[in-house]
C-alpha cells in the first residue's frame, strides 16, 4: 500500500472521482428525502440507471434549432469536468494543473456552463425552457454579490484567491477555524449552494411545478443522450459545489498529503463521506422549510449577502480578527 501514485494519475483521479460519484450523491439525497417524507424512495443507484436509459434513447431537436442546441450539453459537461482540476478534491498540495485557474477561474467555468445551457434553451423557442433560463440568469445576478464577498473574505484571509491556500489556512490552526469571517463566509456560501442546486428557497427539486421551476425547466427540450449529459452536468455541479464547501471551507481534513496509494484511496473515501454528509444536511434542510414565493427570493439573497458582508467587515473594518 505504500506505492506512490504518479501525479498525472492523481490529477485524473480527481476528475474521475467527481464524474463517477456525482449521480451517487444525488441518489443519496433523493433517498434521504424520501425517508424524511415517509416514503421508501428510489434506489441510491437510480440516477445511474436513469442516465443509462437516457443514453440509449433517440435524440430529437426542435425544428429550427441550430448546432448550438446540441453542442451546449457537451460544452457544459466539459466545463464542469475541468473544475475538479482546479480545486482540492483529493490532495492538500496543488497538482500541476491546479494553478491554471483560481477561484474566479472556477467561477467563470461554472458561469460558462450555465450560460451555454441558457442560450441553448433560448434556441428552442419553448416557453418553459426560456422561463427557466431567464429565471436562472436573473437570480444568479442576485446571488453573485454574495459569491463575490465570499471571494473577498478568502482573499483577505489568505492574501491569494487560490482554493488550496484557503484550505491550508483553515487547517493551520484552531484559531483560523473559529474566526468569524471564516464561519460567516462558509455559511453564506452554503446558502448560495442551497439555492444553486435548486433546493431552497423557491424550487422544488424534482418537481415540474412551474411556479418554482428553474433548474428543471432549462433542459425541457433536450432528449436522449443530450438530456443525459445535462442531467449529469447538474449532478456534477452539485458535487463540485459540495466539494468546494467541504474541502475548501468547512472540513479540509482527510485529504492526501502525500502521493502514497493508501492516502489517495483514503482521500477518495473521505470525499465521498463528506459529500454524502453535506447531501444529508441539504436534504434535511430542504424538507424542514417551506418554499418561498418566487419573488421573495430577494429576502433569501439579502440574508446570505448579510452573512458574507459582515464577514468582510469583521476583517476589514473591525481590526482584522
Amino acid at each position: 500500500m505504500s506505492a506512490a501514485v504518479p501525479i498525472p494519475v492523481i490529477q485524473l483521479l480527481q476528475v474521475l472521482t467527481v464524474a463517477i460519484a456525482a449521480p451517487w450523491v444525488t441518489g443519496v439525497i433523493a433517498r434521504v428525502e424520501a425517508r424524511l417524507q415517509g416514503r421508501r424512495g428510489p434506489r441510491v443507484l437510480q440516477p445511474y440507471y436513469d442516465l443509462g436509459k437516457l443514453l440509449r434513447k433517440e435524440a430529437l431537436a426542435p425544428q429550427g434549432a441550430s448546432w448550438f442546441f446540441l453542442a451546449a450539453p457537451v460544452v457544459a459537461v466539459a466545463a464542469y469536468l475541468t473544475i475538479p482540476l482546479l480545486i482540492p478534491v483529493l490532495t492538500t498540495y496543488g497538482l500541476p494543473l491546479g494553478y491554471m485557474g483560481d477561484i474566479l477561474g472556477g467561477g467563470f467555468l461554472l458561469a460558462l456552463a450555465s450560460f451555454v445551457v441558457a442560450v441553448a434553451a433560448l434556441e428552442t423557442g419553448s416557453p418553459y425552457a426560456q422561463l427557466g433560463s431567464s429565471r436562472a440568469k436573473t437570480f444568479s445576478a442576485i446571488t453573485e454579490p454574495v459569491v463575490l464577498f465570499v471571494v473577498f473574505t478568502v482573499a483577505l484571509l489568505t492574501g491569494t484567491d487560490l482554493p488550496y491556500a484557503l484550505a491550508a489556512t483553515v487547517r493551520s490552526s484552531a484559531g483560523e477555524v473559529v474566526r468569524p469571517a471564516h464561519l460567516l463566509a462558509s455559511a453564506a456560501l452554503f446558502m448560495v449552494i442551497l439555492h444553486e442546486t435548486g433546493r431552497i428557497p423557491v424550487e422544488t427539486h424534482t418537481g415540474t411545478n412551474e411556479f418554482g421551476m428553474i433548474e428543471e425547466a432549462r433542459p425541457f427540450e433536450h432528449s436522449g443522450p443530450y438530456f443525459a449529459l445535462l442531467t449529469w452536468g447538474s449532478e456534477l455541479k452539485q458535487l463540485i459545489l459540495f466539494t468546494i464547501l467541504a474541502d475548501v471551507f468547512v472540513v479540509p481534513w482527510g485529504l492526501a498529503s502525500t502521493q502514497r496509494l493508501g492516502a489517495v484511496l483514503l482521500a477518495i473515501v473521505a470525499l465521498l463521506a463528506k459529500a454524502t454528509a453535506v447531501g444529508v444536511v441539504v436534504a434535511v434542510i430542504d424538507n424542514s422549510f417551506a418554499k418561498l414565493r418566487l419573488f421573495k427570493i430577494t429576502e433569501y439573497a439579502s440574508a446570505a449577502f448579510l452573512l458574507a458582508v459582515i464577514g468582510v467587515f469583521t476583517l476589514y473594518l473591525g481590526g482584522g480578527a
Partner: protein
Amino acid sequence: MNPPGVYEGVANVIAALMLLLEFGMLRQALIRDQVRLYTAQSALISVLAIVIAANRNLPELYVLAALSAALKVVAVPLVLRRLLGSRIGAEGAGVAGSYTLSPASAVLVAIGLAAFGFFCFGSMGFHSRQAPETALAIAAAMVFVAFGLMIVRRDVASQAIGFFSLENAISLASLVVAAGLPLLLETGFLFDLLLAVVVFGMLIRSHHSRSESLSTTDLTRLRG
C-alpha cells in the same frame, strides 16, 4: 494578517451572532418571534460573559452572567409577554405591516448602518486586555442597527424590542471595554433595563387601548 487565538475567535463569533440576531429582529414579522430572538441574544451575552470570565479569570463576571441571564433571558421576555397580553398578542401577531421598507431593502440599509458602526470603532484603534476589539466594533454596529430597527418599523412593540436590544449592544461594548467594571454599576444598568421594560410595557398598553392597534402611524394625526 496574524490569526487571532481561539479565545478571541470564540468571543468574536458570539458577538457576530448577536449582530445577526439583531438583523433577525429587524426583518421578523411577529412580536412573539422578535421576543424569542431577543431572548436568544440575551442568552448569548451571558455566554460571552462566562467565556471572558473563564479565560481572563474574572470571577465577578460569573455573577454578572447569572444576573443578566435571570433578568434578560427569563424576566424581561416574561414581563413583555404578560404586558402584551393574550389580546394584543393574538392580533398583534400583526406587526407585519409595519415595515416602511421591504425586508430586503431594510437589511441592505442596515448593512450600511453596520458598516458605519464598524468603520467608526475600527478606525479608533482601540485595544482592550479583556476582549478582542472586533467585538467592540460589532457592538457599535449593533447599536446602529438597533436604531435602524426602531426607525424602519412603525409599531410600538418593535420599537420597544429595538430599545432593549440596544441595551444588549451596550452591555456587549461594556464587556469588551471594561470587563472589570464594579459589579454594582453593572447591576445598576440591569435594573435600569427593568424600569425601561415596565415603562415601554405601559406605553404599549396605553397606545393599544387608545388606538386599537400597535401601529404608530395614527400618531402623525395628533396636533398640539
